């Protein structure tokens, strides 16, 4: 029965639970080590109590002084030390297991995100993905390091104590077992209570937080309408309202832990009174007649320890609930199947002249139907292809298929053996770090000199030279220090630094000022003059004019393709 409930608590039910318990089980060597240390520490505690009972027995019944019980005291101190070391070892082993678990999960999720690719990720909110990857994975810590370990200790230590008590007095053992009508039942009880609590509390707290976050997010508007003070009152009132309502649930939910507390207190009381009367000789049956001061004291001392692991476990139920909530989200993310065709392009036969070729390629988006194709397209080396067409005509989709960010539905994508490509859209990659860091990310071998030259060509030279720290200037979190146009020019500098023969540009000049636009277009001309192959999706007349071929698209199909 115990096993059944353990199983239900950790591995049954939803896929999220199964996933979590599987990932945890992978680290079981560290976690089991923690359980072992915890179990041994529990035994050390029991040993101390045995020594204490024995010591008192010697002092009272044999009239021994401190000198007579010196060895006993030393034993107790020794066990104290051992237990301290074991508890440190337990903590560290559990932490190591939990860290490896989190690292493993982070890698798994990041692999998965990378496999999904840039296009599929656009359907997610970046901030919430990052929150999942960082905080939600952190939430697994409490489950692995505390709950999982304690779950096993609950089954170990009380059993040893029960055996010990039974050896001294089987009736007391039965009393203990009766007041705790089987640990598993208790656990289920507490578990159900804690789960109900967590479910309701999670919902209530989440709703309250959502309300608060909602108002905080709109703070600018509230300020503009002078509604700030009113909203402050409202925020406080909402919190107060939730408080009153959630207390009603808590009143019930806390009962389950009160029951645990009650039974453990009552068990101690009943055992104490039973032993007391037994020692007085008032219980003329059963093993009570054989009770001694030693056995009586020992049983009394062990009774609280019998319940301690369970009480500790009930403290960790919150960790479990958070971890399960986190796993739910992570599993949902991992259940998204990546596009397998994305990374397996075919090789071009004639790659002396051609870089890339699409043959009868189609692309379908769930919910939107066919967005592209079937389309045939050949991109020779040195070509400059301008793709235009109304918005929604599939320009970006075509570019994404060319880049391999999405796998083609039907048809084939053939690439040259040396295909490397550069990419630029309206949201260039910017990382927290210096300008040099941002350039080095995509061109790790470039030295300062080459970087400066590239910036110069991208029209950022004067600006960077004027900066006191030059290339080492930090551009701040999310590129806060750069304007949109400067960021685009940084992306252009990256293209100059790379030797990629193919350059894919997705509306690179959209919503930029005329000056930046001019610089970018000049930059693209230079790239073309270098002999690089450019594919540009654009509305911009000047960019369209750059192409030696024009591709006009509508409704996912090529309308005309003209050479200039």
């Amino acid at each position: 029965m115990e096993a059944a409930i353990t199983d239900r608590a950790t591995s049954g039910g939803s896929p999220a639970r199964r996933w979590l318990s599987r990932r945890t089980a992978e680290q079981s060597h560290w976690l089991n080590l923690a359980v072992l240390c915890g179990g041994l520490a529990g035994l050390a505690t029991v040993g101390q109590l045995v020594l204490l009972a024995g010591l008192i027995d010697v002092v009272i019944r044999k009239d021994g002084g401190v000198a007579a019980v010196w060895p006993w005291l030393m034993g107790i101190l020794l066990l104290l030390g051992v237990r301290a070391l074991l508890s440190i070892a337990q903590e560290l082993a559990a932490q190591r297991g939990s860290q490896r678990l989190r690292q493993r999960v982070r890698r798994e999720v990041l692999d998965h995100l990378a496999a999904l690719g840039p296009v599929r990720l656009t359907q997610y909110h970046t901030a919430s993905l990052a929150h999942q990857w960082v905080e939600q994975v952190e939430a697994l810590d409490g489950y692995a390091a505390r709950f999982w370990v304690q779950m096993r200790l609950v089954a170990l230590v009380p059993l040893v104590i029960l055996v010990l008590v039974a050896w001294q007095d089987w009736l007391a053992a039965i009393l203990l077992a009766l007041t705790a009508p089987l640990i598993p039942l208790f656990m289920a009880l507490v578990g159900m209570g804690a789960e109900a609590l967590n479910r309701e509390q999670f919902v209530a707290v989440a709703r309250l937080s959502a309300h608060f976050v909602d108002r905080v997010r709109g703070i600018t508007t509230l300020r503009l309408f002078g509604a700030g003070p009113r909203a402050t009152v409202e925020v406080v009132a909402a919190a107060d309202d939730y408080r009153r309502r959630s207390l009603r649930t808590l009143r019930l939910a806390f009962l389950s832990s009160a029951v645990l507390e009650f039974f453990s207190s009552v068990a101690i009381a009943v055992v104490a009174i039973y032993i007391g009367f037994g020692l007085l000789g008032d219980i003329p049956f059963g093993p009570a007649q054989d009770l001694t001061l030693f056995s009586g004291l020992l049983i009394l001392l062990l009774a609280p320890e019998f319940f301690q692991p369970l009480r500790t476990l009930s403290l960790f139920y919150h960790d479990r609930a958070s971890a399960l909530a986190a796993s739910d989200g992570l599993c949902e993310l991992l259940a998204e199947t990546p596009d397998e065709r994305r990374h397996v392009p075919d090789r071009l036969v004639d790659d002396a002249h051609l870089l890339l070729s699409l043959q009868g390629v189609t692309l379908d988006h769930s919910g939107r139907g066919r967005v592209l194709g079937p389309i045939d397209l050949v991109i020779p080396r040195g070509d400059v292809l301008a793709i235009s067409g109304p918005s929604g005509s599939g320009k970006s989709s075509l570019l994404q298929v060319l880049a391999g960010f999405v796998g083609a539905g039907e048809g084939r994508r053939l690439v040259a053996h040396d295909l490397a490509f550069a990419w630029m859209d309206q949201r260039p990659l910017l990382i927290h770090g210096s300008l040099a860091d941002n350039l080095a990310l995509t061109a790790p071998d470039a030295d300062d000199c080459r970087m400066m030259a590239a910036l110069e060509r991208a029209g950022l030279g004067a600006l960077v030279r004027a900066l006191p720290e030059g290339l080492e200037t930090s551009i701040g979190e999310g590129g806060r220090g750069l304007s949109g146009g400067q960021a685009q020019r940084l992306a252009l500098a990256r293209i100059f630094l790379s030797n990629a023969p193919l350059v894919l540009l997705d509306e690179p000049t959209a919503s930029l000022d005329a000056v930046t636009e001019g610089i970018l277009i000049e930059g693209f001309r230079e790239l073309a003059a270098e002999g690089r192959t450019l594919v540009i999706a654009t509305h911009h007349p000047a960019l369209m004019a750059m192409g030696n071929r024009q591709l006009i698209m509508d409704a996912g199909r090529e309308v005309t393709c003209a050479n200039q």
Partner: protein
Amino acid sequence: MRESVTLVHIRTQLGPWLDLHMQRRGRLLVGMLLMLLTALSALGLLAVSGWFITASALTGAVLAMGGTAMLDVYTPGGAIRLFAVSRTVSRYIERLYNHDTILRLLADLRGRLFDALVRMDGERLSGRRASDWLNRLTADIDTLDALYLRLLAPPLVALLLSIALVALVGFWVPEAALWLGLALGVSWCWLTLGQARLGLTASRRRVQTLEELRSATMETLRGLAELEAYEALVRRREQLEGIEQRLLRDQWRLSIVAGIGNALAATAIGLCWVMVLVFAIPAFQAGAVSAPVMVMLPLAAMALSEGLTPLPAAFTQFGASLAAAERLNQIDECRSDEGHISDLPNGPLALSVEAVAHRYPGAMFQALEEVSLTLEPGQRVAVSGPSGAGKSTLLALISGQMAVQQGRILLAGHDIASLSPQCLSSAVGCLTQQVDLFDARIADNLWIADPEASEQRLWQALEAVDLADWAASLEEGLATRLGEGGRQLSGGQARRMALARLWLSDPGLVVLDEPFAGLDADTAERVRHGLEDWLAGRSVVYLVHEHDPSRPKPGMQGVTLGLELGLQDPLAWHDEAESVTM
């Protein structure tokens, strides 16, 4: 990393939050006493049981040998039952009561944060990453609400429990009290102050590293296309793993510190009861205490675990609470100076923007190049420019959301810095580019502009933006909830809802940032028409994209914003007539 942590620093950072807690000191005290009662019950239960069993054993032994002995079994029996019940009941009440307190504190904390946000200078709020920053603040508030249950009450309960124990032991074995008191004092200091000191750097930094990891992840995901193209994802992942490594290293350090703390707590408790025993045995042999008392005292000392055990884990993480408080306090430092002039004339207001420019902190470029414009009462002006030219910055400056750094802005002849916030918000009405709608009913969203508006007025407002028919078709009408951030609405509907809200207010100057963005031509025309009556008799500033079809029309004054540093003449006037019709 940051300035070193001194006690003065801790006091100044946590001070305001402790003061906030102290407003509820009655509740905090009661909650703490309940915790103490629970711990004392546990102490009593174990101590009396030990006493009773020993006394029974001795009496039983005498009886068994045919002697006569008397033992009052009812008093200790009753005490044992009493403690068993009081431990349960006080624990239950304590949990309930303290959760109530925590939720009240949460309301206080949120109220305080919100109030501070309302009053702060809007520089941060206008930044690109404002929403991330605001989310972090709300997380910090949640960290601080644990202050009482983790850092304030437990150490005091532990202290009081220790004092109670020392008193109990001192009553029977006075010579033990001094040593026990000393040992407990040292342990208490170590488990609180010592642990806090050891864990301070790592736990404070951990929060920071988490933040760093999150923003690096966002950057990576946003730039995934480029990373994949340049085959740079592997390198970027190494960087991410590097940050994660730092995080894990700090956690490892904290584990060691907490592990040692926990072990020390358990050892200290063990040493205490052994010490009590070592003093009690000679006292028993000297006849100063009876055998049951000699057993009772170390058992009572074991109950210290109720008080000391929670301390190390909580105090090792002290730095996290400190860091949260530090960040929240920054908002107070950004408090804007408030003007006090509060009477502006009714009707259209004159606006004069004189050589205003703006640069956000840490930016390499100016968000707004020097711009000047004047607007007579009732006139209209169109300010156009590409994205990033500073249109939204100009709006934030005119509406007083941010302090003017350079130049000055006059509203009806008064510098806007000298106007009170209430006066300014009622004089200037704005439609921001990013529309904020709240997860509340339609009516609630509209009442933000005018809490006194009648339902009929609300319908008129919806009529003006061509949303009345739509709203009437909804099952719940004005009581329909809009969902988080107005998610239930399309972009165009959200924009019109915001315009309806603006319609309900009565400003003398209206600033509209791309008012018709996202609306199809027909709807835009209807809304333009619907708003015309309301706009007549107010001064209006339109902020429009340079490609926007609603850019300056013949007969309307226009201003173009420049963008890049030193690349062009930043300002060009359209030399058109200053007529105000549109």
